[in-house]
Every structure is written in C-alpha cells, then in structure tokens.
C-alpha cells in the first residue's frame, strides 16, 4: 500500500517465486518411472526455493517493514495498463515465507507418504506449480498480476484433490473448482469496475489505493460486493464454506495441508491487501456484514465440528471457525484486529496444517478416520498421540501457543471497532466469539478424549490377546500401527517448533506486521470522511 518503495535486491522475489518452475522443467524430461529421482528433485527444488526465502528474510529491512521492498515495476501488458509490479512488506512477508516452508515440508513428507494413486512425477510437478501461484499471489502489487497468480493455484489443487483424493474426490474437486471459479469471476468484474472507476490509469495497488478512496460511496459498496464474494469463497466465510469440508476431507494429506496452510489465506489476504485499502467506504459499509458472518462462521463451524464422526472432516470444519476469528479481526478495521488476523492466518496455517498431517498419518496407519473406531492412540502411538494433543491445544487457542495470538486480540479488537462502526453490535459479536472459544475447546478435547484416551480398539490392537499393558511399548505392534517415523519428524518438527516459538514470543511476527498494518489502517482512515 505504501508509496515508499525500496528496490534493493529486487531480483530476489522473482527468483524465489519462479524457481520451482526450473524443477518442473527438469522433471518434464525425466520418465515418470524414476520415482525417487522425482521426489529428490522436488525436495531439492523446494529446499532451494526456501533458501531463497530465508535470504529474503535476511535482506528484508525490518526498519521499514511498512514500505514495499525488493520492489520491481516493469512493463507487462501495457495495453490494459497492467505491469509486472511486485514487492514485499510486513503484511505479505510472513505468508510469502510460510508458503515456501510449507511446500518444502510437504515435499519431505511425500518422500514416504505418497498417496495411493501413485505417479509422484505429476504430483510433485503440481505442487511446485502450486507453490509458484501461492508465492506469486503474496508478492503481486498489481491487480491483474494478483488475479493471474490467484487463479494459477486452481488447477493444480483441482488435480491434487481429484486424482490423489479419497472416495468422493471427483465430486469434491469439481465443487472446489467451480466454487472458486465463481468467486473469482465476480471478483474480476469488480477489479475491472474499480479500474475504470479510478480513471483507467493503472492496476497497481499503490495507485488504486490512492484513487479508489475517491470513488463515491455507493459505487464502492457495489465493487466491494464483487470482491467480497470472490474472497469470501476462498476464505471461506459462512454461506460460501461448503466446498471446504469436502475438499479438505477428500484431498490427500499434502493437499489438505497446503489448502489449510496457504490457500485459504489468499482470501483473507485479499481482504487486507486489496478490498479494504482500495475501497475504504465500501469496507466500512460491509464491515458489520463481514463481522456478523464471521461470528456466525465461528459458532456454526464449531457446531459443525461437534457433529462430525470423521476426524479429518472435523478438522476441516474447525477451519471455518478459525477463519471466522480472522475475519472478525479484519472486520473491525482496527490495528489490533488486522494484526490479529494476519497472525491468525499464519497460526492457523501452522496448527491446522499440523492437525492435517496427524490425520493423514492416522489414516495411513488405521486406514480409517472414524472417531468412534479410534481410541487409545496414546497407548499404541504415544508420540503421535501427544502431537495430536499438542496441536489440538494450540488449535483451541491456548496461550503460549501460536493460536492464542490470532484469537485473543481479534476478540479484544471487537470491543471497540474503528471508524465509528456500531459498537453495540461488535460487543455482542465479541461475546459470541468468546463463547466460540469454549465450543472450540469442547470439540477439540472431545476429539482428543475419544481418539487418544481409553484403551485401543481391539480391531487395531495387534496384541489383543495379551494384556493391554503390552501396548505400552511401541515396538510390540502390528506392522502398520507404528509411531512417528523419522521422515514425519523431519516434516513436522518445524511446525511444532514454530507453533511454540510464535506462541511464546509473538513479537517476532507482530514486529514485522504492525508498522505495515498501522500504515494501512491510517490509509483507510484517510479514505473515510
């Protein structure tokens, strides 16, 4: 948003974003039969990409995190006045880096957890393409460019779900695809409307944020409506959420993780980065609606969770609730709220991603995710059980773990929203949202109690004959029910560490985001008479 830009090392972003394509090209020329090679290439590529990401972190000027850095602005589609404009600021940096790390870890996880459909070549190629789209969406500073990256993500995810997914995969994948299509089509119309309303000069964020505020209110409201649908589908917000449980449940573990960790964030990011700063008055007019829908989502998602009998589907529904908190924070238009939202995005990415990993491994071992059939996980797989407990605790917003910092400030911020939004309404929302945390505790603990506690279900207990005590030591077990494997450790440890570190010392992220957010809110305020 900020006009100030820093163009040192401006090659970094482009390299970091498009590097995976090198791997893709390489793999194109290697026969699909050489699976190990493909996996290796995948891991190496994403590792190098992540390394570039680390370099970006190092080169980032934290003193000016509110201004765009590594800024590039070069000709692209001059006719429609759209440029290849990229840059990174405190708002996008965490998500940009997260996308790289998640991809790397998922690659590693794939090493010996390839979904049943096989064919790692296509699988890994798709993931790499996905990575390009995700990273690109976070660096784009031009509406059209953003739109392109935003859409690039679609197909790979469609195929990941559709080819490597569960029984209902075809239905789920198509639903995901069409739903998102629908959203982005309306979104595109909104973008163009914004473009022409601002005098058809440029698609660059900076310009639109300047000029967008001058559009008169009613028009802003209409344009915002279009963007709202587009982003709300992606988030997903309450009435548009139904693709999510199906997609999550059917997707392969890797797909679920990426979906939860990054893809959903594109929607919320869009709100923060595009819809709100460019259409301040529209945002103000829509904020109560968003807030209400968000809170409905919190309660509704929680209730949905309580109704689930399938572990993975439960986790999927919990995403609806968590993103509800994020959206509530955004809808307050306060620094607190938006900071919380951004933090919540990352936290939710880590935590829910972790939960999906665990769910995937459970499925891998038990070949079922029926909560009623799972029990005594702590006896058969103590470590996995503890990790599940840890992730569950983090997910219900326990202070000291990352989840809390997305949740509490969001609730806090609802106490007095910005720009003269209806305080009474928001205080009601705050209390309901707070109650939502109780429900979160309810369904997560309930899940944990039934899956991890108790004695193992005889049908899975390899030593049902022996006294239950034999279940204590992990090595006594049937071939497929074993505890966390080294590869899983490698893939998961970063998540676990990050959850703790960000939980204990949130300043790590707030320090980066806050200046950018303050600048953004200031800009919005300027746009509201």
């Amino acid at each position, binding site marked *: 948003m900020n006009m100030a830009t820093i163009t040192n090392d401006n090659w970094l972003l482009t390299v970091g974003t498009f590097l995976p394509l090198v791997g893709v090209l390489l793999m194109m020329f290697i026969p699909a039969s050489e699976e190990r090679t493909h996996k290796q290439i995948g891991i190496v590529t994403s590792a190098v990409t992540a390394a570039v990401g680390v370099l970006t972190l190092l080169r980032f000027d934290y003193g000016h995190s509110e201004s765009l850095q590594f800024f590039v602005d070069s000709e692209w589609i001059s006719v429609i006045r759209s440029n290849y404009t990229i840059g990174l600021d405190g708002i996008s940096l965490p998500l940009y880096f997260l996308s790289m790390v998640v991809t790397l870890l998922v690659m590693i996880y794939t090493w010996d957890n390839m979904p049943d459909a096989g064919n790692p070549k296509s699988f890994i190629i798709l993931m790499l393409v996905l990575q390009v789209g995700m990273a690109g969406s976070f660096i784009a500073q031009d509406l059209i460019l953003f739109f392109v990256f935003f859409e690039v993500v679609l197909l790979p995810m469609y195929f990941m779900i559709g080819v490597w997914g569960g029984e209902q995969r075809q239905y789920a994948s198509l639903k995901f695809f069409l739903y998102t299509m629908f959203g982005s089509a309306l979104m595109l119309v909104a973008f163009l409307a914004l473009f022409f309303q601002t005098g058809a000069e440029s698609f660059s964020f900076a310009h639109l944020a300047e000029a967008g505020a001058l559009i008169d209110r009613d028009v802003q409201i209409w344009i915002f409506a279009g963007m709202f649908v587009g982003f709300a589908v992606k988030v997903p917000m309450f009435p548009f959420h139904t*693709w999510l449980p199906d997609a999550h449940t059917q997707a392969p573990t890797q797909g679920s993780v990426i979906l939860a960790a990054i893809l959903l964030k594109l929607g919320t990011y869009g709100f923060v980065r595009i819809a709100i700063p460019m259409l301040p008055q529209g945002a103000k007019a829509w904020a109560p609606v968003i807030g209400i829908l968000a809170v409905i989502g919190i309660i509704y998602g929680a209730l949905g*969770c*309580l109704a689930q009998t399938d572990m993975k589907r439960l986790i999927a529904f919990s995403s609806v609730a968590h993103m509800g908190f994020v959206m509530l924070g955004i809808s307050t238009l306060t620094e607190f709220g938006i900071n919380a939202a951004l933090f919540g995005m990352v936290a939710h990415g880590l935590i829910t991603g972790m939960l999906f990993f665990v769910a995937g491994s459970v499925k891998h071992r038990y070949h079922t995710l029926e909560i009623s059939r799972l029990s005594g996980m702590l006896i058969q797989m103590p470590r996995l059980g503890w990790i599940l407990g840890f992730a569950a605790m983090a997910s219900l917003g326990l202070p*000291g773990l990352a989840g809390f910092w997305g949740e509490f400030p969001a609730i*806090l911020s609802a106490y007095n929203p910005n720009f003269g939004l209806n305080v009474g309404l928001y205080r009601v929302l705050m209390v309901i949202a707070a109650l939502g945390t109780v429900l979160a505790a309810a369904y997560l*603990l309930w899940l944990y*109690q039934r899956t991890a506690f108790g004695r193992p279900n005889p049908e899975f207990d390899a030593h049902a004959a022996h006294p239950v005590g034999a*279940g204590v030591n992990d090595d006594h077990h049937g071939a497929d029910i074993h505890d966390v494997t080294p590869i899983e450790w490698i893939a998961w440890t970063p998540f676990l560490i990050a959850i703790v570190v960000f939980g204990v010392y949130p300043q790590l992220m707030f320090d980066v985001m806050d200046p950018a957010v303050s600048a953004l809110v200031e800009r919005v305020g300027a746009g509201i008479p």
Partner: protein
Amino acid sequence: MLASTLSSGWFLENAWLIPLIPAIGFAFIIFFGKRMPQGGSEFGLLSMAASFAIAVGATVQWIQRVNSASSEGEHALGGFFGFARAVLPMAGEEGGHSAAFVEPVVRTWTWWQSGGLEFGVGQHIDGLSIMLLLLVTFISLLVQIYSTEYVSGDRRYTHFFAALTLFSAGMLVMVLAENMIQLILGWEIMGLCSFMLIGHWWEEAANSRAALKAFFTVRVGDVGLLVGTAVIFFGANDWAVERGSNGFSIRAISAWALSGEASNSVLFWGGVALFIAAIGKSGQFPLHTWLPDAMAGPTPVSSLLHSSTMVVAGVFLVARVYPVFFVGFDILDTAVNLITIIGGITIIAAAALAFVQDDIKKVLAYSTVSQLGYMMLGLGVGAWLPAVFHIFTHAFFKCALFLAAGSVSHSGSHHSFDMKKDMGGLARKMPITATTWMISTAALCGIPFFSGFFSKDEIIDNASHNGYQFFYWVGLIGAAMTAAYMTRATYLTFFGAPRGAAAGEHHDDHSDAHDAHAAHDAHDDHDAHHDDHHGRHAGPHESPWRITAPLVILASLAIFSGYLNAPAVGTHYFTDWVEPAGVAVAADHAATATDGEEHALGFAALAAEEEGGYSEGCGFTTPEDGTVCYAPKLSHAEFAWSKAAPSIVLVAFGILMSAWLSMGVFGDRKHPLKGLTSRSGIARRGHAFLVNKYYLDHLYEGVIVKAVAHPIAKAAYWINQNILDGVVNGVGRSGRATGEWVYRNLDQRVVDGAVNASGLVASETGHALQPIQSGKVNQYGALLFGAATVGAIVLILVNI
C-alpha cells in the same frame, strides 16, 4: 518515597527466573526424562528446589525492602504502627502514621505490539506475589517429594512429573504476571495441566471425562476473563498510555481504577466479567461441580492443584486487580455485592454437601470449595488482607489434609478412598498421619491458636466491621458446619472399628479411584511392586518417610503459619509485608501530568455520605495530580476475644455435636459403652448420654438424621448432582445435539443443497433445451427466419 530509595536485590530483580526454571525443567523432563534413572522426577525436584530457593531469597529481600520503606517512613516501628492501624482507623493522611507504599519491583520486556503500542511480559513483584511465589514453590516442592513415593512405578511417572512441573511454572507465571495477558497465559497453562493430571489415568473413561469436564467448565469461566480483560483494557488504555504504560499492565489498571477517571460502568462490567472467570477457576457456586470430580486425579494432584494453589487462582485474580472490584462494586459502601453473594452461597452449599460424602477426598474437595468461598467473601467485604492470609494458611492445612488422605489410601486402605467401607480405627495404625490430619483439621475448623483461626476469623470479623452483617452470620454458620463435617470425616477415618481394607481384608468392590488405580496398575510392572508391597506388610501401616515428612512439615506450618498475623498476640508481620499501603504516591511514570482539571466528583460525594469507616485516602478521594494510588485504603477490624467468641462457641458446638452423633451412628454396635469409652476421650465425656444407646440411635437416625441432616444435605446433594452438574453436562450434550442438527439440516440440506441444486438446474436446463436441436432442417430454417422476423418486428415496434 521514591522507588530508588527502596532496597532491592538480585533475587527481587530476577524473580522472573522462578517460573522460568520449572518451565525449563518441564522441557528437560519431556525430552530426557524417560532416560533418567529417576524417570525425570529429579529434574522436577531440582527445578522446584531451585525456584524455591530463589523465592526464599526474594522474600527475604522483599522484607528488607519493606522495612527500608517503613523505616524511612516517618512513623514508629512495626509493633506500634500495626497496633496503631488497628486502634485508630482514621490514621490516614493526617498524622502521617501511614504505611509507606512499597514500590513493587516491576520489570518488563517487549512481548508483542499492535498499533504501535508495545506490550510487555515481565514481573510485578509485590507482597501478594511474593507470598504466593513462596507458597507455591514450597508446596510444589513438598508435593513432588511426596509424589516420588506415591506414584512410583506408575507407567506415566515421567509424564506425571512433567505435568506437575509445568503446572508449577504456569502458576508462578500467573503469580508474578506484570500484565493481564501474562496472567491469562499462566491461568490457561494451569487449566491445561489440570486436564493432563486429572486425566492422568485416562484408560478409564470416567477419569478422562472428569478431566474434560474440569477443563471445559473452567473454560466457560475463561470467557469472562477474555471479555473482562478486553473491557478493562479499552477502559484503561488511553489513561495508561498517557502515563507511558498500557491497558494491560496490572499497575496501570489498579492506578486507573483508583484515579477517579475510570467510568464506573466500565469498572463494574469489567469486574463482573473477571469475576465470572474467578468463579470458574475457584470452583465457586454454580461452577463448582468440576472440582469434586477432579478428585479422580492422583492425590498429590488434588492436594496441589485442587486445594492449595490452582483453585486459588480465581481468588488471586480478584486480589490482584482489587481496585477494579473495589471501585466497580463499590465495596465498603454496600451491604451486599456480587462477590459476597457468590462467596456466601458457596460457603454454605459446599459445606452442606461435604456432609454426605463417603469418599474422603470428596469431603476435602467440598471443604476446599467452601474455604474458597471464605476467601471470596473476604475480598467481597473488603477484607483484602484476611482473605489473602487465608489463602496462605489454608494452603498448608488443606494440602496436609489431602496428603494425609492420600497416605491413608496408600498405606492404610489399599488405594480406597471410601471412608465407610475401607477405613476406621486407623489412628492407631498410622499415628503420624492421624496426628497431622487432626492438627490440620483443627486448623481448618478454626480452633483457636491454630492457623485457620487467625485467618478465617479475621474474615468473619471484618465482614461485620465493614457492614456486611448478613455475611457475618453466613461466615459463622459456615464455620460451625465446617467443624461438624470435618469431625465426621475424622471419626470415620481414624476412629471406630476398622472396616474393609483398613481391617486388612482385600475386596475388589472399591470406589472409582481405586478402580482407576487398579486399572492403571494393570498396565504396568507396578503389579509386581504392588503385590510384594502388600506381601511385606499386609494391612494398614504407617507410610514411608517420603510421605510422612511433608505431612509433618505441613502440619506444623498449619499450626504456626497463623502467628505471622495473629492480632490475638499482636503480630502483624504478614500485614506489613503483604498489604500494599493505600496511599497516593508520585506516579513514577507520570511523564506528562497533562490533566490539570479537578476530578473531585463521584468520589468526593461518595466520601461525603460515607458514615462508618473513614473517607480519606485512596479509593475514596481522587489522588492529586501527578500522584496515583495502587491500592485502596482499607481498615482492619480490631481483634477482640469478645468478637471471636461466637465463632469459637459455634465451632465447639459443631465439633461436639458431630462427634457425638458420629459415634452414635458409626460406632461399634456390639459393646457401645466399652467400645466408646475405651475409644476416645470425647466419647467418655458423652458417656452419660450414651447409656441407653438404642434410644439414642433411634433419636439420631429417626429424628435428626432422617428428619433434619440428611434430607437437607441429601436434597442439596441431589440438586447439586442433577441440576447444577446436569447443566454443566447438559451444555456439552445439547451442544452436540445442536451441532448434529445444524450440520444435518442447515449445512447439508440448505446451504450445501443450494450449491448442488444450482448445478443441477443448469444441467436440467440444458436437457430441456435439447429438443430444440431436433435435427430437422426445415425446423432449423423456421427457427432462423422466425427469430429474425420476430426480432425485426419487435425492434420496429420499439423504435417507431
């Protein structure tokens, strides 16, 4: 009196290490515990010992700090000035006989920021936190020692110690919290640990359910904590930021609440919200039902978490940000307020429930609830110090009681907690345990010269002193009931004829706790240990030293801790060291004293119509510009035996009545006289009544028990189990049901249905349109030309 002139020291400055060390210890246990010879318990013990050491150091330095402050203050020494405070409540600004305000030792580091505001994490050390630091580290240490024996051989020995240590860390974090967020952090960590520890033997559905229930119930209260924090934050923030602090800082909140600039409604609602959290955590009515269930956990857990430390977190919260409640509920100006109501109900209800428990731990659990009620009541009536003091004393004797109960079940009753089935007559078999138990009981009952007397009685006394007459009586009745049910428990456990396991027999229809234990035994090699453990000495016997040592220590403290603040003998060290003086001090970070206008409204008026007590000083008048108050100015009732008498009498009555009845009911039927007389001195005194025993039994069982005691208590219990508890469980169940319904009908049918329907519509439309494509050329031509013509006609009609 500037902070600079106050003495400080390394321990005070680095008190933040106290929670940090156990936290690290926890990490060590988790990662290396299993490989250690002692299964990781050594890490726990070490870390607790270390933090205890630091806590002691900090305490010493704090006392020096206080003395340095008061010595520089222009008033007489402790003795006189404590007395002075008692005799002339008017000792306010005039005369200058005021205690020096001892600047807390505050250190913060930036933790997170938002909107340019930086929020810290750090330590806020004042009397209250020092007291609790010492208390928590000390008791944790004892309990851990005790546990090494009690849970030895448990298959999750390591996890047990991990959780125990993490718990201590959490509690300590909360105790020295510099701001609300940090307080919440500790608060929730404790919740988590209690979940882990209550559910320690999670193979049993019952235990894991209890764990779930505890966490869930407390979580309900936490909504209040979140909301309250938010309310207070936004109330205080601007004021605080102006003075270089922020709305989370506890100092800022206190000062703001007393600054006279705080809106009363904000304070009120914030207070209500926070108090709801306290209700949940401290097992106050009506959210107390989780606490008895929590007894499903191992006894050390009960003694540490659910008697002496964690459950007082709620009380601590209220005490910590007391100004909010003081002003919000304007205590001292009313005869009744939310806190006192809840506290009062809790005292009576819980005490009544304690009567009908057969599980010794449940008796103690309800007694805990009831005692917590006293603490709340104390805070509610403006008896801040007595309430805090009661936390202090209660911790010792209640912990002792639990450990004694544990000792009984461990060595006396074969892991049973059922007083009626498996105990009785253990006094002779387990002398140490019995003695310590009875000392602690005496303390709990508030028998003079035991610690409980000095704290509890102060609360009751101040209730009337501050104009809460009704609750004065509530307190007295509660005291009597306490005495009565404790006597009953004592008798059942240690006197009378040995029954069940206490008589050395093994039978397997034990209480849940036993099953749980047995079940967990079944999992591990504990069986072996278990058996030879009984092989060595069948039947009841005294516990090994690792159990008795803590008992002895605690019991002795149960006697002597009271003398830290025994007005009866004129000591008031506790007051001097812990109570923050309610005087205005130069706001050390009032960087810009911008607000020069008068705030004489509200408070001045209040002060005017204040009759009893006094009307000057913090909490009554607005501090002058540039000065702030951190604590309200509170008066203390003057101790007098005359005032203590009623409670003493009532307690005595309760004990005697109960003892007499207990013997009558539970006594040895065969040879009443011999049995009784030979059994206990109390009974010998009641000899005369007991001659015609059957008549007595009849009288008791027929009349009193059936007609009076039981119906009431039973009714209370029934309501408790079925209504209150039902609600708690109901919430869960109905939540599930609602979830099911919403998901089935709303989500799958309506919302999702709409989505899928739209797809269907499109495809069906296509189907409907296919006939147009008939394949016949003529029809195609007709359509072509027809469309053109129609179009032409319409357009012509429109345009001409």
